[in-house]
């Protein structure tokens, strides 16, 4: 088999035509997963009944396949009268699935802050909200920046799953081209390169953010 560069180039406009969907789904899913994951972790810390329920929920989410979530939201919910557009199902599914992982990241990020930090802040007379917003949250952010970035890359790479519920994204459109032309190598290679570039961009962004958060010291 010979790789046809001209054909590969001709697939680029089609594939890039849906890059907006891929990026949009990824960005919204990152936001959704972060918000859900952080809320889950805070609820888990509440202890007692909500804490135990949340611990179970986080473990449950993490031990189910992402495809199961997408199929469930897309095919099962309508039986109960809840029919969501494919795009919404995709964003919701990725958000829920990755929230489980992000909850664990936030847990580690909070646990890594020495107990003395909150004590020193309280000893200065700061109220609870200020202790969290000026002392704990900024330190949690620097602790979680790198692992959260990794999960954002994972979310980006999970967007092709949305092909199974007919969301037009890059891998799906590449497969469409392949099944029409019987040439797989070129469109799939193009998709691979586009994902690589996007993932590198996220990694670079996270790197810069982390350096900014850490300040001049490499603590």
């Amino acid at each position, binding site marked *: 088999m010979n790789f046809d560069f001209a054909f590969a180039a001709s697939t680029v406009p089609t594939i890039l035509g849906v890059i907006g969907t891929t990026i949009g789904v990824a960005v919204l899913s990152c936001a959704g997963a972060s918000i859900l994951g952080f809320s889950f972790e805070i609820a888990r810390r509440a202890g007692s009944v909500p804490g135990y329920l949340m611990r179970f929920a986080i473990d449950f989410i993490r031990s189910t396949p992402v495809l199961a979530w997408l199929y469930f939201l897309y095919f099962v919910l309508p039986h109960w009268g809840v029919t969501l557009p494919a795009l919404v199902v995709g964003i919701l599914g990725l958000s829920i699935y990755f929230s489980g992982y992000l909850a664990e990241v936030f847990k580690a990020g909070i646990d890594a802050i*020495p107990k*003395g*930090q909150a*004590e*020193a*802040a*309280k*000893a*200065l*007379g*700061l*109220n*609870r909200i*200020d202790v969290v917003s*000026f*002392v704990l949250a*900024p*330190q949690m952010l*620097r602790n979680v920046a790198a692992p959260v970035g990794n999960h954002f890359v994972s979310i980006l790479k999970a967007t092709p799953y949305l092909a199974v519920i007919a969301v037009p994204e890059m891998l799906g459109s590449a497969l469409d081209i392949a099944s029409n032309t019987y040439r797989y190598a070129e469109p799939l290679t193009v998709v691979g390169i586009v994902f690589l570039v996007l993932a590198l961009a996220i990694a670079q962004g996270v790197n810069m953010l982390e350096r900014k*958060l850490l*300040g*001049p*010291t490499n*603590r």
Partner: protein
Amino acid sequence: MSDGQSMRQAASWPAEIGQQHGARGPDQTAAVEAAALNKWFGSFHALKDINLAVPQGGRIVICGPSGSGKSTLIRCVNGLEPFQSGTVRIGGVDLTRDQKQLQKIRRSVGMVFQQFNLFPHLTVMANCTLALRRVLGKSRTEAADIAAHYLERVRIPEQAHKYPAQLSGGQQQRVAIARALCMNPKIMLFDEPTSSLDPEMVKEVLDVMIDLAADGMTMLCVTHEMGFAREAADQVVFMDQGSIVETASPATFFAAPSQERTRLFLDKMLR
């Protein structure tokens, strides 16, 4: 504890405990007073019937073997550690679990920790100004002026723009002292302030503390630095197994301790 008892007198603390940067009047209410204080960690009886009074301007050193409850006691004084029975009074005000009241009392009680606990994401200056701005509502420039004054006082004004990780341990601890002083506290609590320092940095921190003592700051200090106790304290409290065993002036404490346990402890410490 008859020493402590005699220091309790019924006069009033300045009406507003959160009052800042005002003059310290010749007030006779005990700055800190713990009465019949008991604390358990689970089934472990950490503080047993503690009675302690720190008069205004008093400089009390608490010493004792590890696990004797010294740190727990000092942490009860500003409500970082809850206790099960007894009372703690700061300037005549009972410590409760009410958050608002605790926050108010903590403004007038500075604390310095063994591990410094500077905020690593903030510069030295921002470490010092955070509470001035958020708790006392000072403006940025006002807070910076106050912070600069106290950084000068602990002899590191030139480090204001640096981050804690860029400083030596001794410098970090002096910043921590300045950070506490910025709130113009009526009492300073020191919880083993030199225990995690390299030996050559102990002196620079003790010097700052001795200056503070000379200026009349009320101090409650857990430390193993017997030299500091001798030089700066007006009372030494010896604790063992959760109880106060002996309270004496430094002269008496080191020369003629009345309790056998104190003598055994001093034998180990002073060689």
